């Protein structure tokens, strides 16, 4: 040991600080890593268990022999229908509402109430949405249990999140762009049209796409409003359902073959789960790459 610190040399205190720093960094890293491990385990476990059943036929075939064999086509198709119809309803309403809230609304009690409603609606459990959908769309609106009723229920569920993510995307457009518009006499709509939307569209789309995975994954809201146990559909038939039909859905099908039907080979529910998860991941990856692609074109 030296008798005293050299110029710029470390002292006992410096060393102690560095030790704390190293500990802190590793703890945080470990927590971040802990996020990845479950995901990797889930995917790995599912894929291994599902492997024997996974094939193109599994995607395109209807379930056979009392759901103990065959594929998941009707459920996959039903989920696609539900997601498309629900987003076709929720996306335009959500985006337009968000534009109003972010671009036009002044900070008064009425708009605060709307804001509060949006936030609270986003926090409502999906089973409550399911009951609301049953009451409002199936019974009161007399849609009966159908794709349209189930999609509207999903739309109500995804709407507040679409509004929130759209508002965030709109708010991220730098104010100087708006100021440039205001000060040449652009109306609010012209400002939105020429500057705000073109520069927030990637964020808006990302938010909407992320809701696809949510709508696809939920079971409760569709169980009461439009999903059914089994429907005979031809292999690969794209137009098996009409909007007023009930349909099968992946999440519901997974629940059914895991718990309601005795004697289903183990690989089938796992393979269904892999398809559901795979579809969701695919959609999320699309959203992320879209965002990266659009962001690369921005330069501010």
């Amino acid at each position: 040991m030296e008798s005293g610190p050299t110029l710029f040399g470390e002292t006992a205190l410096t060393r102690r600080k560095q030790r704390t720093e190293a500990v802190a960094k590793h703890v945080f890293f470990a927590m971040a890593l802990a996020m990845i491990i479950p995901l990797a385990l889930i995917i790995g476990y599912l894929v291994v268990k599902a492997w024997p059943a996974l094939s193109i036929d599994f995607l395109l075939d209807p379930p056979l022999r009392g759901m103990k064999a065959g594929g998941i086509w009707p459920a996959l198709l039903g989920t696609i229908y539900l997601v498309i119809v629900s987003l076709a309803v929720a996306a335009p309403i959500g985006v337009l509402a968000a534009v109003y809230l972010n671009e036009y609304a002044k900070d008064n009690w009425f708009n605060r109430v709307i804001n509060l409603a949006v936030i609270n609606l986003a926090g409502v459990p999906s089973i409550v949405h399911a009951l609301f959908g049953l009451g409002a769309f199936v019974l009161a609106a007399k849609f009966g249990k159908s794709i349209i009723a189930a999609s509207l229920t999903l739309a109500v569920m995804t709407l507040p999140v679409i509004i929130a993510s759209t508002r965030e995307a709109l708010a991220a457009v730098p104010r100087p762009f708006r100021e440039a518009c205001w000060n040449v006499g652009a109306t609010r709509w012209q400002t939105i049209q020429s500057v705000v939307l073109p520069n927030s569209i990637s964020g808006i789309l990302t938010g909407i796409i992320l809701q696809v995975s949510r709508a696809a994954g939920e079971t409760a809201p569709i169980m009461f409003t439009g999903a059914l146990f089994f429907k005979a559909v031809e292999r690969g038939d794209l137009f098996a359902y009409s909007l007023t039909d009930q349909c099968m859905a992946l999440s519901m099908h997974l629940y059914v073959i895991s718990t309601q039907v005795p004697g289903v080979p183990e690989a089938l529910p796992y393979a269904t789960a892999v398809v559901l998860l795979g579809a969701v991941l695919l959609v999320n990856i699309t959203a992320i790459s879209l965002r990266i692609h659009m962001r690369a074109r921005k330069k501010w």
Partner: protein
Amino acid sequence: MAFLDEPMKNAPRPSSPPAAGSDAMEDGIATRELNLWYAKFQALKSINTRIKKGVITSLIGPSGCGKTTLLRCFNRVNERYGYVTTKGEIKLLGKNIYDPDVSLIELRRSVGMVFQRPNPLPISIYENVIFGLRIHADGALRKSDCNDAVEKALQEVGLWRDLKDRLHDKAIGLQLEQQQKLCIARLLPLKPKIILMDEPCSALDVEGTRAIEELMFELKGHYTIVIVTHNMAQARRASDECIFMLMGELVEHCRTEQLFLAPKNPKTAEYIEGRYG
């Protein structure tokens, strides 16, 4: 003036009867008992002033004294920034801009603003220049009109020679000084009467500042220019008249040399000597 004949689009505001005065039309901007509040905070206190047409007037004063607020009153863009209550009268070229027949769209078209940080839109240089024309066009614009407008505006701000071969490049890629000139060029096709500048050089280096100031000299005469600046040397160099503000009040307004050489108010003297600010 285009904004005079627009139909009523905004709720009428209280305004005092028109001021008498034979030379009212000589004023670019005249305010009478102008008071402004942000919610409860009074940012402007009975401002009475007459800014001459066709000259450069600078607004100086410490941060938070209301310079920018006053500037933003002149095209009523303040009203886009949240809770603002305005009382009093502002006349632009003799017309009270709070009159019910004033259209904000036409007002802002005739009174352009340049900002502290250049704010070209994330589109091409060409499209930036004709952005205002597009906003105000009734239907599609003729290609030749656009080309002429772009050339004329860029000539006027001295960018034409440098940029004429890359008009379709992104405006965001230009140097800051060029961006700021472009922002000025963006106003010109709309044939503004008044150009408001909010610290237009504070993001620029010495060269850029000089270029913008030279441009201001080129433009004066055709346009009434009001510039907010923190830079007293700039106010002194670049303006004909100077207004000193403090805590929301207008302390002194006179010819620039006079304000800097023989200020009437001791507060002005203290400020320009750098005792606060």
